[in-house]
């Protein structure tokens, strides 16, 4: 167990990490048009300051021994009743630290990039407000010291995601995509809620320390339940099967959003959750296995979808799914894989952000056209973008020495350590990665220009390219830096533990096989899309392509199984409410009205009828008396 240190020194600023962007968001969102001018800069500034603080904290943390790197700050009691008590408390440990760094640094870059990308948007101020809100929520997610507070960040990033996806909400598709993202995420949130509840019922607390501290006493069934529920949560946030359908639609949002939220940070929250909950998964093998299965499935789904999409962002989104699938399966492997899941998460955060921003840069130059079939030969028109994008591509494909190579190779290795089949599957997926990334790069930058009329591709302004360059540098060196200089394995070990197993084949062989397969895939992509003419209208393709273009029928399945039945039920209940429940109410009113109308004729106005009823009454009264006496 790690020792929990009080948050002193720079760590006393923990709350500020969250509060700064939150304040930024509040100012930007509530201040009105007055702040239009300087608002975006404020947005950048807050995140930048966060990044500075984060780096400062990192330095401070490295000054401590590896067992004294957990800092906790308790602000106040948040919810409490009976034996339930949750604090507004933050905790920074090594795992959080890397996330804080990722979020603040990549966040800063993307904020800067957005200054250019969104420069013409009238609602720019709001955009930065949302971005700041996102950063704040994401930081809360990773800094929370208990699951419930984590949940706040968890939904907070979902909210920011919703807001940013539907940022251009005048487009119905964007609005719909935002809603869809939120609702599907909510399904995952149900999982998280329930997991928290099970934890509370089991352990009497939802704090990380308390839960993990007594994991050993809980039954495996309970832990499996918690694990599966957490997995459900992770599926929602990280777009894992079967809750993957929202991510592709989420590309309706502005590209920086896709980069920050739907590639680098938010979607990896699921991985964070699983990794953070490692004591639970370690004790619940079935849940861990499920995590692996989900990861594998999503890894392939994402890859296949990414291979078929002509929309550059959606293709990248498919790739994101696939890469997160890697991370998830790695996390599912247990102590063997946690570190590498996080490792890959970090490298992926950087190179995928770069790729997305690159794609954004391309779109910027192509009048926001996202169809790669109308790209081609852009390498000359936008050289910086081209260069950084290619670096990113190489990185994600796992070509040495780019960052992706190190992290992905670690995962493949870990997979083999755990289970040969999973290992083989990861290699195959890597090959597909090679294919679709090459396809993307080829369609965009190589081949003939297939531009639409009136499009004049041009390089993006500095404010956009500089972040690209920085991210490209990161894509290149970060893997090595983290692995060798940063020593990520030992860094994270106190939190997640680490375990090494021997595998049957030597490392170099595995690496080679992987590389060969990736290159084969890349070659196939090159041949298909750089050498050959790319038709402007997509050919029909085989069944897999068609299915992939339909997101592997994810929406169709959701519609058939969930959405449509819901609407039918809703319509039925509306009818039922009006006709039956309200019908009963109004019916009983009508009944008495009708009864009244039916009885009125007996008040006939004839004295003799009245006398008759009086005689009847007298008889009734007498009979009643007699009957009572008799009974």
């Amino acid at each position: 167990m790690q020792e929990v240190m009080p948050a002193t020194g720079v760590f006393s600023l923990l709350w500020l990490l969250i509060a700064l962007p939150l304040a930024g968001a509040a100012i930007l969102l509530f201040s009105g048009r007055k702040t239009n001018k300087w608002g975006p800069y404020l947005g950048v500034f807050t995140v930048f300051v966060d990044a500075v603080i984060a780096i400062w904290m990192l330095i401070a943390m490295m000054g401590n021994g590896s067992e004294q790197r957990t800092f906790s700050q308790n602000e106040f009691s948040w919810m409490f009743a009976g034996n339930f008590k949750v604090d507004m408390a933050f905790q920074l440990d090594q795992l959080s630290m890397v996330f804080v760094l990722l979020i603040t640094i990549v966040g800063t870059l993307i904020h800067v990039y957005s200054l250019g990308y969104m420069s013409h948007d009238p609602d720019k101020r709001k955009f930065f407000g949302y971005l700041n809100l996102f950063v704040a929520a994401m930081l809360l997610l990773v800094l929370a010291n208990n699951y419930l507070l984590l949940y706040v960040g968890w939904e907070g990033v979902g909210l920011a995601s919703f807001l940013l996806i539907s940022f251009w909400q005048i487009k119905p598709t964007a609005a719909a995509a935002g809603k869809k993202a939120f609702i599907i995420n909510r399904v995952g949130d149900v999982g998280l809620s329930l997991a928290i509840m099970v934890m509370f019922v089991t352990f009497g607390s939802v704090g990380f320390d308390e839960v993990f501290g007594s994991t050993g006493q809980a039954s495996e069934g309970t832990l499996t339940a918690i694990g599966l529920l957490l997995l459900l949560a992770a599926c929602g946030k990280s777009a894992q099967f079967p809750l993957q359908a929202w991510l592709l639609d989420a590309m309706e949002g502005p590209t920086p959003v896709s980069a920050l939220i739907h590639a680098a940070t938010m979607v990896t929250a699921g991985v964070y959750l699983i990794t953070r909950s490692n004591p639970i998964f370690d004790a619940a093998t079935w849940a861990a296995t499920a995590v692996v299965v989900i990861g594998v499935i999503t890894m392939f789904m994402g890859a296949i979808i990414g291979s078929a999409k002509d929309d550059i962002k959606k293709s990248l989104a498919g790739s994101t799914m696939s890469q997160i699938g890697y991370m998830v399966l790695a996390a599912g492997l247990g102590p063997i894989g946690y570190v590498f899941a996080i490792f890959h998460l970090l490298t992926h955060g950087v190179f995928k952000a770069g790729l997305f921003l690159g794609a954004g840069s391309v779109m910027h130059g192509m009048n926001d056209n996202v169809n790669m079939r109308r790209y081609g030969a852009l390498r000359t028109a936008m050289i910086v973008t081209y260069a950084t994008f290619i670096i990113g591509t190489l990185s994600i494909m796992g070509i040495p020495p780019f960052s992706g190579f190190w992290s992905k190779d670690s995962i493949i290795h870990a997979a083999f350590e755990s289970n040969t089949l999973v290992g083989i599957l990861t290699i195959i997926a890597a090959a597909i990665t090679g294919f679709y990334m090459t396809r993307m790069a080829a369609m965009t930058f190589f081949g003939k220009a297939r531009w639409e009329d009136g499009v004049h591709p041009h390089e993006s302004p500095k404010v956009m390219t500089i972040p690209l360059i920085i991210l490209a540098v990161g894509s290149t060196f970060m893997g090595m830096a983290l692995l060798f200089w940063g020593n990520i394995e030992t860094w994270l070990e106190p939190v997640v533990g680490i375990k090494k197993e021997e595998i049957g084949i030597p490392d170099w062989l595995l690496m080679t096989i992987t590389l060969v397969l990736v290159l084969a895939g890349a070659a196939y992509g090159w041949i298909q899309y750089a050498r050959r003419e790319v038709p402007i209208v997509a050919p029909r393709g085989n069944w897999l392509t068609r299915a992939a273009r339909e997101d592997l029928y994810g929406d169709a399945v959701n519609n058939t199984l969930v959405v449509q039945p819901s609407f039918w039920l809703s319509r039925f209940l509306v009818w039922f409410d009006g006709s039956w429940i309200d019908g009963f109410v109004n019916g009983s009113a009508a009944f008495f009205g009708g009864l009244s109308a039916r009885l009125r004729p007996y008040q006939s106005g004839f004295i003799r009828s009245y006398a008759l009823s009086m005689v009847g009454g007298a008889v009734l009264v007498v009979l009643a008396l007699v009957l009572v006496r008799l009974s």
Partner: protein
Amino acid sequence: MNPSNYVILSALLFGIGALGVLVRRNAIVVFMSVELMLNAANLAFVAFARMNGNLDGQVVAFFVMVVAAAEVVVGLAIIVQIFRSRRSASIDEPNLLKY
């Protein structure tokens, strides 16, 4: 024979009077039927007075006669008034107030 036969007779007369109220349409006849009922009650009072051995019943009967006389006067006045307005003594005729 038993004195209670008087009571039985009064019951019979009472019932017949009630029946008369129900079936007759001439207001005056209806009213006569009511008087018959009062008389039946009187007979009962008288008979019970004898059976109980006190005179309260007879006193009551006496007062009932007074009351009945007053009632007759009022009743007939009302009937005459109605007759003047409507030229009819039918009890079914005044039938504007109903439902």
